[in-house]
């Protein structure tokens, strides 16, 4: 068994392409994509919040008070294009403010004066701008109504029956955790990618080079041969996992997190926890991919199966992304889902619930062992041994 293990590692380490792909590019890809994505997102967000707001206005002459209020707030009022709807539709402008002649009339009469915001709410990037414009309009509206009430001798507080205050208990870590929501997905995909090549090479590859039949003639129970191969694949997956986590830690330390008023709780200690949590998942990935690859007759055939299986770790991750909920016990018992929720808790800086960690390790470990046991029986099937005829 050790002989198989050592040989498979040696064999695969000889392949420079494999090393570059799985041990260097694979672990690096996640952190790099992640870092670029986050710094881009936050830069965009801060730019939108702080950049001077340019607002094209149609019919500015109908509401000089409003316009001068906006200008005092630092909004740059610009000339609106001739066809405001078309301009927004073609994404030349994000938001256009339109004031019709009826504005002045309604204003004089003391009715709510119509103000029209032209925007495409399905364009996500314009959300911040719309919110800012609405904020200014709301502020002005509040100011005017207070003045009006005071003129009539009514205390403005009468119109504010309640005063809502939100006490934000989020910590910089927990706000950072929101950003790190993608992390479990990247970690798990690294594990799957890390074991993929080796799983194929040791099974389908062995069949393709016609070396499986001679190998099985050796005086070794077949499950031991499989165990050696699985062990090598798992080691490879663990190596990629470790490298990937370290790469993440390094990449995150370069992010401008202070600017965002958050802390990314991803240091080596957290990485070590994540490694522990994902270690049984590495065996599981290795066994799952090995089982699939063992059925394939060639490298290519195996790779075509793998494309689909790579989606498996995505399912729980995306579920969590779409429907974020509090971690409850049953979640920690579902392999792959448990890694997701626990890593998220971890990066949010919450104390580790050791019982949950234990449950996750136990259930994922058990699933992995079952898969490994199935893999161990595979070479007892003659149709998986012979390449042809």
């Amino acid at each position, binding site marked *: 068994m050790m*002989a*198989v293990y*050592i*040989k498979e590692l*040696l*064999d*695969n380490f*000889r*392949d420079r392409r494999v090393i570059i792909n799985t041990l260097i590019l694979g672990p690096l890809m996640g952190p790099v994509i992640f870092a670029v994505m986050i710094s881009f997102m936050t830069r965009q967000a801060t730019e939108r919040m702080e950049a001077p707001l340019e607002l094209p206005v149609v019919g500015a002459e109908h509401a000089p008070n409003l316009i001068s209020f906006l200008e005092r707030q630092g909004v740059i009022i610009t000339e609106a294009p001739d066809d405001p709807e078309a301009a927004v539709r073609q994404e030349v402008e994000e938001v256009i403010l339109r004031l019709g002649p009826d504005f002045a009339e309604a204003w004089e009469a003391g009715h709510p004066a119509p103000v029209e915001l032209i925007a495409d709410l399905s364009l996500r990037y314009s959300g911040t701008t719309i919110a800012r414009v609405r904020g200014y309009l709301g502020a002005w509206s509040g100011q005017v109504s207070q003045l009006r009430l005071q003129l009539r001798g009514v205390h403005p507080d009468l119109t504010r029956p309640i005063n809502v205050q939100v006490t934000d208990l989020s910590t910089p870590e927990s706000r950072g955790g929101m950003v790190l929501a993608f992390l479990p997905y990247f970690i798990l995909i690294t594990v799957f990618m890390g074991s993929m090549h080796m799983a194929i090479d040791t099974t389908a590859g*062995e069949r393709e*080079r*016609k*070396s*499986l*039949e*001679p*190998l*099985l*003639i*050796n*005086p*070794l*129970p077949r499950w031991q041969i499989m165990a050696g191969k699985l062990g090598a694949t798992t080691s490879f997956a663990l190596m990629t996992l470790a490298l990937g986590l370290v790469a993440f830690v390094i990449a995150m330390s370069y992010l401008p997190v202070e600017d965002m008023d958050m802390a990314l709780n991803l240091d080596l200690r957290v990485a070590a926890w994540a490694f522990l949590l994902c270690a049984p998942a590495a065996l599981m990935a290795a066994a799952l991919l090995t089982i699939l690859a063992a059925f394939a007759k060639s490298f290519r055939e195996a790779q075509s199966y793998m494309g689909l299986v790579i989606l498996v770790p995505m399912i729980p991750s995306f579920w969590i992304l779409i429907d974020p909920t509090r971690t409850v016990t049953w979640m920690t018992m579902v392999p792959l889902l448990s890694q997701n929720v626990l890593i998220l808790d971890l990066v949010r800086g919450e104390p580790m619930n050791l019982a949950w960690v234990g449950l996750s390790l136990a259930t994922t470990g058990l699933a992995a062992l079952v898969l490994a046991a199935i893999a161990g029986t595979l070479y007892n099937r*003659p149709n998986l*041994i012979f*390449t042809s005829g």
Partner: protein
Amino acid sequence: MIEANALRKTFNKGKVVAVDEVSFSARDGQITGLLGPNGAGKTTTLRMLYTLLKPDSGGIKVDGIDPTAEPLKIKRALGVVPDSRGLYDRLTARENIRYYGRLHGLDRATIDRRIDEFVRVLDMAEFIDRKTDGFSQGQRVKVAIARALIHDPRTVLLDEPSNGLDVMTTRALREFLRQLKSQGRCVVLSTHIMQEVAALCDRIVIIAHGRVAAEGTADELLARSGEKTLEDAFVKLIGSDEGLLA
């Protein structure tokens, strides 16, 4: 010493009868040839001998060991050069052979000593430390033989060993097989080339359509068929000359 008794193997749920009631024996110190045209059932018979396939019925004994009872022991007793001779092409020839030595549980020193022996006997010095990627057929066969015999087995099975070899390499291979025989080993090889059995084998088992058509020494076969040349004898015994004349 191999005894095969009424071996039968079918594929595709009994639709394809690959081997049907094949019985023969192969003695130590002799080379036994399984001769038959393509698809006759030679490979299937050998696969049952080296326990990769389970016979549907019938029994095998190698040196008195029953493969169903002691599969690992029988594998230790056998050295097999199967039909497929895939090597690991990122490893050198030496590493390929060493891997099989480790799988047999041999220690490092024994493996190295045996490899040195093979390098000498099989003339492998030139390529033993090269990666096997791009090896010629002859070089591949030599590596496959060396790794199959690394544990010094008493019984040697070879499936079409001279497939794809040129005349010189074939001669060297035959010489090597004679050496194995003179060391008292039991050698069984399969081939569809009649000249090969004629030149090499002490006993000949003719297989056609999954059955043993005839068995014996060359002289016995001549006598039984009443023909003058081996070639005619084979044609008569099999009932046709398909695929036997190389």
